[in-house]
């Protein structure tokens, strides 16, 4: 059998998913410079969607062809080992591309009649490029640069609604907390470099395993600070403060983008840096660190979500809670268990990417229709928009982890993985939190279906693209239940291949 095309191509082509995103972003700028008045929003959204889908297609194609995976020669290292492409990279790039596509499609309606649409789309794609690079980062310097590349467009996107004080305030807060976090992260990297003399993860790993030149304390402080940088990106306690404000103030599609793709990107980077860069038991017990972060994050997120009055803010806290679940991937990591729980965490992020994006896009739909933000404002909406409400119900129950939706299996495998790795109490905390989460998720469902409307809805014309994105996300959430086998196998294989 001839080798597949993916294996024959030059190695740089392995970066094609990221390149597709950056090229699309540049093309959008070119289009904008030709037609600065956003005369054809459909063209802009179309180009953005095409670019995101191309990236998704390339990632899927490379993943299917075995690029960077053990059976075709292992991970592909590029540019002096600064970047690496393997199963995990492609898995996350497919995830980012999917979310980006959904967000861009939904934004077409959300941005109706607004200025600077080309800038919006290109910023989304540049942020996505940053995320794609985060998934490929193999050195701490690339990690920092790509994280900033993802963050800086995000700050601008959050404050995209320039005349909306909430949006501007949220953007500013996000930026300030982000700046502080980046400072912590950069300082952490410098300390690790000081202790190990290298920024390449593999070298860092070897040096740390060999005793860190006697500078264990320096390396330990550095590692905690690096973890802080990731905690910011994944909205984990105590670096989470920006999240509720930013998600609430930002345009809802941006909230969807940040809470799904950006968070997953943080995890992609955290998984790689910690698993391949910092050996277990060298100076710091980072598994314990993530256990603390996971428990505190999921508990705080869920408890705070339970008392919110506004749906979007509830989703923001629920997103913090889910960061806590995903942290189990690192918190229950053991060498003996291998990539099982890590892969389960990746699979959970994949499912989460669809269900959480869908939930925020439903909020975008509600904002587009101009109905209020609180639970009461959503009451009785099912009479007017049954299809969208079915989709929202799917998202809510899937986020809570109920069958027959994708979120059930992803959470199940995650908790089961934790139990198998020996951290049953972690799974127990997760299960208790999930039970609590059912309370506030079902509040949305109850409002939509069971309660009577408090006022007449004046919904206006149906935003087709936004509607389509919501429904597609719902279909994907449901299909990920039967299709979960493939996802978890890919994820666990990719995670196992990453192990040093």
């Amino acid at each position, binding site marked *: 059998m001839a080798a597949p095309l993916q294996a024959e191509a030059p190695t740089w082509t392995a970066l094609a998913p990221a390149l597709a995103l950056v090229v699309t972003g540049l093309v959008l700028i070119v289009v904008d410079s030709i037609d600065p008045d956003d005369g054809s929003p459909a063209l802009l959204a179309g180009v953005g969607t095409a670019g995101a889908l191309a990236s998704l297609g390339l990632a899927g194609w490379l993943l299917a062809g075995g690029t960077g995976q053990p059976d075709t020669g292992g991970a592909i290292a590029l540019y002096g080992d600064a970047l690496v492409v393997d199963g995990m990279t492609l898995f996350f790039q497919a995830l980012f591309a999917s979310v980006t596509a959904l967000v861009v499609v939904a934004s077409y309606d959300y941005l109706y009649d607004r200025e600077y649409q080309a800038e919006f789309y290109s910023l989304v794609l540049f942020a996505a490029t940053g995320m794609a690079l985060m998934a490929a980062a193999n050195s701490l310097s690339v990690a920092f640069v790509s994280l900033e590349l993802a963050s800086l467009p995000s700050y601008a996107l959050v404050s995209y609604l320039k005349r909306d004080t909430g949006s501007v305030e949220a953007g500013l807060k996000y930026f300030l907390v982000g700046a502080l*976090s980046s400072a912590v992260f950069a300082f952490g990297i410098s300390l690790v470099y000081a202790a190990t003399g290298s920024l390449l993860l593999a070298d860092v790993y070897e040096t740390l395993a060999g005793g860190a030149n006697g500078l264990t304390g320096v390396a*330990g402080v550095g590692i905690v600070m690096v*973890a802080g940088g990731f905690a910011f990106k994944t909205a984990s306690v105590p670096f989470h*403060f920006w999240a509720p404000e930013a998600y609430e103030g930002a345009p809802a599609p941006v909230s969807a983008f940040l809470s799904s793709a950006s968070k997953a990107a943080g995890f992609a980077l955290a998984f790689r840096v910690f698993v391949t860069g910092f050996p277990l038991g060298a100076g710091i*017990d980072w598994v314990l660190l993530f256990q603390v972060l996971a428990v505190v994050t999921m508990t705080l997120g869920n*408890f705070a979500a339970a008392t919110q009055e506004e749906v979007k803010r509830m989703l923001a806290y629920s997103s913090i809670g889910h960061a806590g679940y995903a942290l189990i991937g690192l918190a229950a990591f053991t060498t003996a268990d291998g990539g099982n729980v890590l892969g389960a965490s990746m699979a959970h992020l994949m499912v989460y990417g669809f269900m959480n994006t869908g939930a925020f896009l439903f909020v975008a739909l509600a904002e587009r229709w101009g109905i209020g933000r609180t639970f009461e404002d959503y009451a009785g909406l099912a009479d007017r928009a049954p299809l969208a409400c079915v989709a929202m119900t799917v998202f809510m129950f899937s986020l809570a982890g109920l069958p027959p939706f994708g979120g059930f299996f992803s959470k199940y495998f995650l908790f089961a993985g934790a139990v198998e790795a020996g951290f049953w109490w972690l799974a127990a905390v997760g299960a208790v939190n999930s039970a609590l989460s059912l*309370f506030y998720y079902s509040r949305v469902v109850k409002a939509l279906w069971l309660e009577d409307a408090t006022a007449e809805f004046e919904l206006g014309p149906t935003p087709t693209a936004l509607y389509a994105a919501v429904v597609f996300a719902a279909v994907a959430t449901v299909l990920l239940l039967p299709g979960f086998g493939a996802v978890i196998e890919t994820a666990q294989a990719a995670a196992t291949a990453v192990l040093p």
Partner: protein
Amino acid sequence: MAGLFDYTPAVVLLPFLSFLIAVGVAISGRDLLPKGGAVPGIAATAGSFLLSVALAVAVAGGEVYNETVYAWAGGAVPGTEGLELTFGVLIDPLSALMLVIVTLVALLVHVFSLGYMNDEGETGLPRYYAGLGLFTASMLGFVVADNLLMAFVFFELVGLCSYLLIGFHFREPGPPSAAKKAFLVTRFGDYFFLVGVVAVLATFGTGQFAGPESFPVFAEEALHGEHAVNTFLGLGEETWFTVVGLLVLGGVIGKSAQFPLQTWLPDAMEGPTPVSALIHAATMVAAGVYLVARMYGFYAVSPTALGVIALVGGFTALFAGTMGIVKRELKQVLAYSTISQYGYMMLALGAGGYVAATFHLLTHAFFKALLFLGAGSVIIAMHHNENMWDMGGLKGRMPVTYYSFLAGSLALAGIFPFAGFWSKDEILYETLVHGLGGQPLLLVGYVFGLLAVPVTAFYTFRMVFLTFHGDARTEQASSPEPVGWNVKGPLAVLGVLAAGAGVVNLAPVRVLTGAHVDFLHGWLDAGFAELTVHHYEEIDPYSSAYIGGEATTVLVGAAVSLGLALLGLALAYKLYAVPTPTEHTAKLGSVRDLLYDNYYQDEYQVFLARRVVLPLARAADTFDRSVVDGAVDATSSVSLFSGSRIRRIQTGVVSNYAALLTLGLTVLLVLFGVLGGWLL
């Protein structure tokens, strides 16, 4: 006959198909089927009967069959072997015999229903035939079950169907209440059965009845130290097996209406009479005894369980018989006789008389079905008046019914040479010789059984004389409604069987002459080695002793029981075979009310339910509402309260965030610095 056994599931599925057809018709609401759905039912049971006979012929040729049809759940508990839950088919001599009995009685009951239900213009016939079909299918599924869990599933279905059929006339006050009672009382026993099923699966890892990997075999090996099993509660193996056996026995006692759970059965007479025939002769009540016979290898290794079975059976035989002697209604007398006769079967099983019990199950199926159908015929003739004191003199006006009913009564009373004589005599004989062999407990059971003999003969012939002899006491009795062929046909078939079925196992004749005429013994001694009679005799704890030789014991035993039966018959003749009989119950004095009220058993059970169970349930409810709900509510209030506190951390002031963030990082740094040993 290669491949015949592959059709075994059809025995079960054919009546199920007729059920589906009848349900379909009932749902359509139109009168699509001739005879209200009886025809598919008759065709299905006839097909099942023919197939069962073919299977029995194949089994007679030495073939047996034990196959798993479908595994519906499988899994493994870490550290143990996998456990699979399956449906399967086990055809051995016992189940083949039972299949023939059940399908034959079901077929005759279906035919009889034409006369009893259709010709009487009952409404809701599709529902009735749907119930009969499902009832038959459930029982057949239970009979062919190859493992305990499957048996339990069909056991429960049997219980459900009895509920549906007893309550067939649901618009009247009596039947729904009787149906509920039957359901609840048997369910009480089934609760223990279910625990027993789980215990068997947990102990042995399998519920299979037959094969080298079956739980009776494992139990036997475990007692010899050849196989490791899980026991619980810190009990030794034999004690634990006894506990498990008694748990399963709970279901048996409920379904087979043994003391103290027999109270549902007399009330169940509210159901249509053909249903009573089916329940008593071949399905529901027989299910309990059949279950013990099916897993007899498991009980045989536990002397305590056997002793309990024997005592419960013997006591029930006498106890229920005494209640039958004062009843005024025809079907009530039969109801108590059923309880009493199943008591005999249990006595036989407990006394090591596996063949005797199966034999009595067989003969009883025929003569009790006959008696019920005969009673049904009388009830048709009397326009649904069941009071025997309103009858009399029916002998000349319904001869077919009379002579067949007489044959059934002679069999029930145990008069030579009718079928009941042979089977009952064998039960008493087995109990006696095993009791003499050093088991005083069995001698107690024997005395119970022996005392029940004249009682049985008395109430049986009191019923016969009051119904058929003397002068007609009402107008209806003097000009009864004629019954058709569909009533007389089944009666004739069963009459012949009730008279002659004893020939299948003439054990006393064998003892006396040495001729091999105990065919049933030989039949049950074939098939799977671990399910044969001589295997059971090897492992059961009994030995035999005789009064002056085997032949003498046989003769003395038979003479005593026959003499007692004739005594009871003679007393009934003297009191009731007169032109205008009177009740004679006043002579019983204070015992009379005790018997009329069934020893106040309903009263004490209702008392238990009202004064013990209800307060307990109320207490549990209070606990649930206050403590459990309180804990849940408290959890949610605490959650919401802490949620609202956590919410306040989010002040909206970004400098606070920066401070908290830095603080948090510092805490982490200090914590892990100390833990990692590089700080301080």
